[in-house]
């Protein structure tokens, strides 16, 4: 290994952190390997603020931010960006609105200026709102025909009843149709603001200079009366097996999701659950699930498990796409594998393999500015400590087989799962 590459893991020494007077946290790290810079971050403004009548409002707002501001039209914003090969976009999830962009480092001031303009001064022009509404409605019509999307949606609805995680962030046709310009402006006015906002910036710029540039663009933002996000309601525990099917005619493949709850990202048992998931449905050719459903039985092109652990209670899901006539057979194989998993846990070799994979692949996730900025935001958001990646190898190695099987049993009860399927 080349001497100068050894310190490629982010650490407190090279992540420069600063909190601006208005509450915005800035995290910066230099990378002079290419003349580019990447910014990414999040702020309050997720679907957690929505009412059931206006599902999809948070996403609608975030997509409108760049469709007209006090100084720019939709076309002029994108003209500025695209002329210099830069990009910027907004999105929203349950807890937060988020943004990401990149440019050549010479164009960073332009990028930050447009970020500020979109956040501070969106005007929600009516014509743009209608164009976007037509796009969202087309997206919903396509979702309605997508077996994978519909199985996921069905799964979430039944895992998280009466909970923000159980509602689709892109809404329904009726709720999207009911959203008015007034709704958009009010949502932005009440919920967006600098408090709780975090900006990550990685690229060919000294971290202190990067922070100064962010401060210049965003330091003047102040919002009075920025609303606090409501607390998440309690979860309803699963008391039985729930099986639901969403019918879509004329499709040659069905999708399935079998799953249950998972820990928060910052839970102490996260690493054990994550390694359990790796053995179950990730490692190599998609772990044990891939082995039984794809390799041994040839039933599916994709079959894997995934763990969604974030700021709230997560989900642990097995997913596959199969021929409709093989749906029950695939579900039986998955059920048997889950039972074996919680009964016998993982072998010494399986655990060692996944641990080695986690440690070995770490440098690969920091290859690009985008990978680095999301890693830094992640450790900050979940309060894992800026030295997390320095401690990472120890954290992975400290997980034992007992930890893994206990973690699996804590979350997976094969008699109490949500089984959601979509297809003919």
């Amino acid at each position, binding site marked *: 290994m080349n001497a100068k590459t050894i310190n490629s893991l982010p650490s407190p020494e090279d992540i420069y952190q600063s909190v601006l007077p208005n509450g915005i946290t800035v995290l910066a790290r230099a990378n002079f390997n290419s003349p580019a810079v990447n910014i990414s971050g999040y702020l309050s403004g997720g679907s957690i603020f929505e009412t059931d009548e206006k599902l999809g409002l948070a996403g609608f707002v975030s997509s409108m931010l760049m469709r007209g501001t006090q100084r720019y039209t939709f076309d002029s914003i994108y*003209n500025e960006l695209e002329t210099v090969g830069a990009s910027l976009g907004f999105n929203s999830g349950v807890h937060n609105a988020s943004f990401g962009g990149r440019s050549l480092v010479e164009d960073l001031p332009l990028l930050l200026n447009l970020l500020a303009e979109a956040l501070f001064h969106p005007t929600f022009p009516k014509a743009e709102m209608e164009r976007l509404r037509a796009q969202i409605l087309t997206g919903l019509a396509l979702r309605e*025909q997508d077996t994978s999307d519909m199985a996921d949606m069905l799964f979430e609805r039944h895992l998280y009843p009466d909970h923000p995680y159980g509602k689709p962030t892109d809404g329904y046709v009726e709720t999207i149709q009911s959203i008015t310009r007034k709704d958009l402006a009010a949502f932005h006015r009440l919920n967006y603001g600098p408090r709780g906002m975090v900006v990550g910036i990685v690229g060919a710029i000294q971290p202190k200079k990067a922070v100064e540039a962010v401060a210049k663009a965003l330091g003047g933002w102040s919002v009075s009366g920025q609303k606090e996000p409501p607390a998440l309601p309690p979860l309803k525990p699963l008391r039985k097996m729930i099986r639901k099917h969403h019918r*879509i005619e004329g499709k040659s*493949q069905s999708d399935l999701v079998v799953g249950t709850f998972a820990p928060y990202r910052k839970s102490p048992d996260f690493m054990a659950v994550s390694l359990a998931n790796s053995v179950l449905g990730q490692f190599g050719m998609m772990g044990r699930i891939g082995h039984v459903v794809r390799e041994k*039985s040839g039933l599916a092109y994709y079959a894997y498990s995934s763990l969604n652990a974030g700021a709230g209670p997560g989900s642990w899901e097995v997913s596959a796409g199969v021929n409709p006539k093989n749906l029950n057979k695939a579900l039986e194989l998955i059920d048997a594998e889950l039972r074996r998993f919680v009964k016998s846990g993982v072998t010494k070799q399986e655990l060692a*393999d996944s641990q080695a*994979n986690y440690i*070995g692949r770490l440098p690969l996730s920091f*290859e690009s500015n985008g990978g680095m900025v999301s890693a830094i935001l992640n450790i900050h958001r979940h309060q894992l400590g800026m030295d997390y990646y320095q401690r990472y190898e120890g954290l992975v190695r400290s997980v034992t087989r007992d930890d893994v099987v206990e973690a699996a049993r804590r979350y997976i009860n094969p008699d109490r799962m949500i089984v959601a399927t979509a297809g003919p």
Partner: protein
Amino acid sequence: MSKSITKVTLKNGMKVMLKEIHTAPIISSWIWYKVGSRDEPTGKTGISHWTEHMMFKGTKKFPNGILDKAISREGGRWNASTSRDSTRYYETMPAAKIDLALRLEADRMTKSIFDPKEVASERTVIISEREGSENEPMFQLSESMLHASFRVHPYQHEIIGDMADLHSITRDDLYSHYRTYYVPNNAVLSLAGDFDTKIMIKRVRELFEKIPAGSVPPRLARPEPERKGEVRLTVEGPGETVFTQVAYPFPNATHEDYFPLQVLESLLNGASGLSYKTCRLYRALVDKGVVVDVSGWSESTIDPFLYRFVMVHRPNTKPEQAIKILDAEIQKLQDTPAPAAEIHRAVKQARAVFAYGSENITNQAFWMGYTSMISDYSFYTSYLDNLAKVTPKDVQRVAQKYFQPNKRVVGSYIPTGKGS
């Protein structure tokens, strides 16, 4: 951007390309075989892609189930893909572990087993992969567009292959395809990352040079005759959304018109890898509320392929109005030279996209190999300079030459409703 690479040809004809990059403790290794879906005769469509799947099913030294775990255990990322013109396998590994990837690729170049049981189970996996694609209206439309665009040239079928062939291809067909094309003189190895070039070449020689060369058949390339009149088609299926594709025959990547056409593409549909909300077609079609989305792209291929436009229509509208506007925008480019500023813009966009790509070591090894399949690495290193040489007159000339209505295929996906 560093342009210096080392090129070596082994005694058996295998080409090796190396680029040292010491920004992260990572090495990416790609092996490319000059075989893709265009080398498949009728009855054997999909065989290149299926062979690619079988390459993960093990050799004697790296049996199935050991192979994938060996790479993953070292923290490597690996995959493979089949295109129209090539099949490629890559491993991106922590630098100290790259030897495993090289040993694996040297071994499976000639020693993959193709166990009949594994062939049988992979048959259903690939059929399932195709069924997943068939769920998508755009796949259904694209497949019909390809068939209509190429009557003679083997670009006429999808890479995954036709269902009939996925049912009938045998283990021996696959094995014979493998042994024919997977020979060192038909392969290029591209390596980028944290290594010493001299040491790496020595190791590559040790592993690959002893593999005997083979005789590779000439590539299947029956030239597509010129079309004499527009073709229109429709595909029906479930859903509520209408899609239209318009496909024009386009020249190959080494053609003298390639760079003016890249600029033309940037003007009409935006630069590859960036948002495209201020390109001419977005402004004319989406901003004006005619369609929900419009995109378009060419492909850098060995033989002439296509420029394809895709439009997603607004609910309850017919494709004709949108096609008329598309035609009018093309007409503008044919009638009037594009402003020089618009061309400079396309060059700056490409410069930015190149800078983003150079952050990533996997990407750098990819481009070395990719360009060697269609031309050579100078295609990549001189790309921006060649783009900068394009003049407004060039763009006008190629717009006139290639966008001819009587050469195109126009197809629409007509939804039959939710169907429930």
